[in-house]
């Protein structure tokens, strides 16, 4: 079912992709009215359910357990990462991710521990979004999905493709895949907990929660794909005086 939804969503998004803004643009917002409605749903869900659940989860779980869960989830994303690095033509990263997966699956007890990090093979996010970025596919319009959160047309397309193309789908039994989905959910809850003060300020203490979230999301996504904040995005604060 999950795969079906993702595939349908992907097809829909690819068909409807809008044109590109300037690289560092923060004003272009073609789906604004849809997004604003979705944002209201998301803010309410975060206030009533997600935020309280995340804080409760954070308070009852020791950091080591949370770390272990994140490690497992990160580890089993690696086979998919290898495929992505190949699509990006990055042979070195194919080797690194493969080694990391082998080391952590064996010596790291299925990925609970992360000995590969100490071998200078840290976890790095990868997926179709990174591949599309490498190929120069534009990010598309900002698109906030009810109960899904912020994204862009490219992000959501990539998200759907990541789910349907995960090599684990053809290797692991359904129970294991379900288990990994649960682990992935717990990791999202952890992230919400560890970033609590930033997310609270953004979602619930901003004069305009929608634009605050949109602007923060776009900048963060661009910095993450570009390997950090680029000096090209900085403004000259003395220019107007």
């Amino acid at each position, binding site marked *: 079912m999950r795969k079906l939804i993702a595939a349908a969503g992907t097809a829909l998004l690819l068909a409807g992709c809008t044109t590109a803004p300037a690289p560092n643009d*923060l004003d272009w917002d073609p789906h604004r009215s849809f997004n604003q409605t979705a944002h209201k749903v998301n803010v309410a869900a975060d206030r009533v359910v997600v935020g309280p659940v995340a804080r409760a989860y954070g308070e009852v779980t020791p*950091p*080591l357990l*949370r*770390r272990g869960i994140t490690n497992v989830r990160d580890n089993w994303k690696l086979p998919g990462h290898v495929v992505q690095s190949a699509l990006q033509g990055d042979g070195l990263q194919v080797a690194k991710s493969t080694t990391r997966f082998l080391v952590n699956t064996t010596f790291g007890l299925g990925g609970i521990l992360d000995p590969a*990090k100490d071998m*200078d093979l*840290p*976890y*790095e996010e990868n997926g179709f979004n990174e591949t599309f970025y490498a190929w120069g596919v534009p990010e598309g319009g900002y698109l906030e999905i009810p109960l899904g959160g912020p994204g862009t047309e490219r992000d959501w397309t990539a998200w759907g493709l990541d789910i349907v193309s995960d090599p684990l789908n053809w290797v692991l039994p359904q129970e294991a895949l379900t288990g990994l989905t649960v682990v992935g959910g717990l990791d999202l809850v952890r*992230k919400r907990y*560890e*970033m609590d*003060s*930033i997310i609270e*300020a953004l979602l619930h*203490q*901003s*004069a*305009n929660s929608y*634009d*605050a979230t949109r*602007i*923060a999301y776009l*900048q*963060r*996504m*661009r*910095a*993450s794909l570009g390997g*950090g*904040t680029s*000096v*090209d*995005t*900085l*403004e*000259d*604060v*003395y220019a*107007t*005086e």
Partner: protein
Amino acid sequence: MQLSKSGGLGRRDLLLGLAATGALAAFGAPAHAQATAQAQTLVTSLSDQLTQLVNSGRSDEQILSSFESLLGQYADMSAIGASVLGPPWRSASSTQKQSFIQAFSHYLSRRYGKQFRQYKNAQIKVTGAKDGGRVGVLVNSQVLRPGQETVNVDWQISSGSGSPKVVNLVIEGVSMLASERANIGSMLEAAGGSLDKLIAQLKSTT
């Protein structure tokens, strides 16, 4: 978000290394290397003070007001305020400008001070710097929190006022200037475009 490879080095080694790298990169342009080194020194000294402050065991209110004075000391609040307010700044009277900057400093220190207050036992590590020319130097740092995700914080340092000052903070890629411009814009709109009402509202930020 991975830890830097230089995780095992002390701050002094790191700074020396960075200074050397900076000097090499800017070979033939010593002024640039100097700006980069100065910016790093400024951020290192500010992060030391911030770390001391959050671990001082003082009350929340004391910490927030000390945070405000640190901002005044290390950041160019007039330039930040003017840039965030945008066009209304130009039509404001000099009294309004002065009280806006005061109120904005109060507001900003509450909003961002609450974040820093969470960083008890955290360590701020300067990891690099890049000279952006006219816009200033971007100094990269990582806030290392025991048992929690590392937060990347970049500091934009500019000498546009004559001496190096913090003019922007980029937390996890998110620029404070851009975010606050949207925020202050919305607040001004909600205040019916009245700058005096906005100033009163900023002053009352808790």
